[in-house]
């Protein structure tokens, strides 16, 4: 009888587990029309490398953010000083290079643009990005940043694969160069996962697939690899923004756990000692 209950609750927890796995998969916002490099999956985000301990990457990300993003997107829950401390950027260097206008080092990081005017210009005020990585996930941000392409039908001349018809201009186009949505001949994949071939000639069968992104050669200040790295740095910086105290939290957590392990071990020994009286 005990077993029935036990197996029932086991079964139930199994269902719950499957359920939770299901949900966490759905939790990262899906990436619109984003096409993977091999052309096989659509709408799944590209995986971003996020590492809160990589200070160099965070510093580069901060540099891009302050220079290209902060004009419109505030980080209004965070303070300059904390960023300079966390990212190990000397205060004076930070002040001279990364703070614009008359903002002070202890201030919240506000955007230069007036939200009301922004709404008139872009249809929507650019959102604050302090918590964007928590809301959408770093993978989404990375995919989004690398998914702009030229689309003359849009008012700003660009569109985005991840966020279709977004109101944001491609701010980093000088860096990246001119990205275009192109079609490619891709090998046909059979249901068993292999590449389909012509039964007579043995030639690989191909199919035209559209939606790949390519940058016109030599139009950008950066090579595609450099640009990709810059976007990873920027993503890393935004992930840090959402959870700035991750490293401190996990360090303290480790000590707390260590303490609890010792406490639990001692309390177990105490319990075992008293238990002897009972039997």
């Amino acid at each position, binding site marked *: *009888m*005990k077993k*029935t*209950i036990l197996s*029932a*609750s086991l*079964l*139930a*927890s199994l*269902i*719950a587990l*499957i*359920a*939770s796995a*299901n*949900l*966490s998969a759905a*939790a990262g916002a899906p990436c619109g029309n984003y096409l993977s490099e091999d052309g096989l999956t659509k709408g799944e985000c590209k995986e971003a490398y996020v590492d809160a301990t990589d200070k160099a990457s965070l510093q580069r990300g901060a540099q891009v953010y302050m220079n290209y993003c902060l004009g419109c997107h505030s980080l*209004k*829950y*965070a*303070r300059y000083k*904390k960023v300079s401390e966390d990212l190990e950027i000397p205060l004076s260097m930070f002040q001279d290079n990364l703070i614009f206008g008359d903002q002070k080092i202890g201030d919240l990081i506000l955007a230069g643009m007036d939200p009301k005017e922004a709404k008139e210009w872009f249809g929507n005020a650019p959102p604050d990005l*302090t*918590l*964007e990585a*928590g*809301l*959408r*996930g770093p993978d989404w941000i990375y995919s989004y940043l690398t998914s702009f392409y030229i689309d003359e039908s849009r008012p700003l001349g660009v569109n985005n694969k991840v966020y279709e018809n977004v109101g944001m201009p491609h701010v980093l186009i000088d860096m990246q160069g001119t990205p275009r949505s192109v079609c490619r001949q891709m090998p046909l994949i059979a249901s068993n996962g292999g590449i389909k071939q012509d039964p007579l000639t043995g030639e690989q069968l191909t199919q035209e697939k559209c939606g790949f992104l390519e940058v016109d050669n030599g139009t950008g200040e950066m090579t595609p690899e450099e640009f990709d790295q810059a976007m990873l740095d920027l993503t890393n910086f935004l992930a840090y923004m*959402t959870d*700035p*105290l991750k490293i401190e*939290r*996990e360090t*303290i*957590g*480790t000590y*707390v*756990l260590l303490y*609890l*392990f010792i*406490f*639990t071990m001692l*309390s*177990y020994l*105490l*319990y075992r*000692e*008293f*238990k002897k*009286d*009972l039997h």
Partner: protein
Amino acid sequence: MVTKIMNWFDDRLPLTATIERHLTKYPAPINMNIWYLAGVLLVVVLVIQLASGIWLLMNYEPTAEGAFASIQYIMRDVEYGYIIRYMHTTGASAFFALIFLHMFRGMMYGSYQKPRELLWVLGWITYLLLCMLGFTGYVLPWGQMSFWAAQVIMSLFGSIPYIGEDLLTWIRGDYLISGITLNRLFAFHVVLLPLALIAVVFVHILALHEVGSNNPDGVDVKKFKDEDGVPLDTKPFFPYDITHDLYAIGVFLIFFVTIMFFYPDGGGYVIEYVNYEAADNLKTPEHIVPSWYYTPYYAMLRAVTFPLFGLTAKFLGFVVMAAGIAIFVALPWLDRSPVKSIRYKGNYSKFFLALFVVSFFVLGYLGTVTSTPGRTLAAQIFTVTYFAYFLLMPIYTKYEKCKPVPDRVQLG
């Protein structure tokens, strides 16, 4: 010296007597098992919530304009503020996980049966209060999910025939969810509900100590006593239970701290990702889900898709959902079994209890996902099986064949 001080107090207050009765000499059955730990852990979580809540309160700003930013202020600028907040959010989920285990224990071993009916009812009231605390607390960060969850839950009152619309306005204090609503939910969350919770928990424990703890065999340990009148099959709380509980608290805190420091979002269950965005009454999130501990009832709410007797589907769903929470209170009077514990009950009881558990989990899952026709049908079926456990209980407990109950508790 200590004796002198104690004597001074004992002449003016039943101090020693109270400590002995409720703590040191409280007789606990020797065959209590792991299921009996949820109770003491609930007290631990209650203390965690009260302590962390007070510290949050020192920095939180209960206004529609300032609430969201004040949470981020706590997370970033207040020294160790993030620890306090994560303690509170993890504590909320732990509270529900434990109370579900605690309730299930009671259902399994018949802890609601005579003479523990009142104890059960008091426990049920703490569950109700906890549901309200969870809801009101969830709204306070004033993120997107806070706002829209409040919108959905409060609009349920609007579905009540005739008085619904006016009632809804009265509850909200406004024509839509606003800072006024936030303020009143805040007042409930930090004053009224915790006060009520502490009071009811106190009486719950008093009632427990009056009737004594049940045990996995469901036998009455008071039948056989030694010459001092202490039941034979019990051990004093001090030192035997306290050392046992201390060990259990250690193990529990290891889990708690792991979530709190390393997975504070809990994969979107402890803190929903949508709540990273400040409340915006012009922008509905694509998919509104309540916290995981309400999802079984949310699934019931959505399972009712048809109007009946001139009542709207929404109102009926509300009624079913409320009934799903309320029906626990009737358990002592639904169970006609001569035995308490599932160990000696018949096969029907075992089957229906297992069915209940499965229904609860499946409904819980269905409450987290978007509805499709198939899922709605599943939710309807499992809502029926959920209620079947309760409503058919007078029949199956009366006619099933039970095993003989031993006189004394069984060990090993």
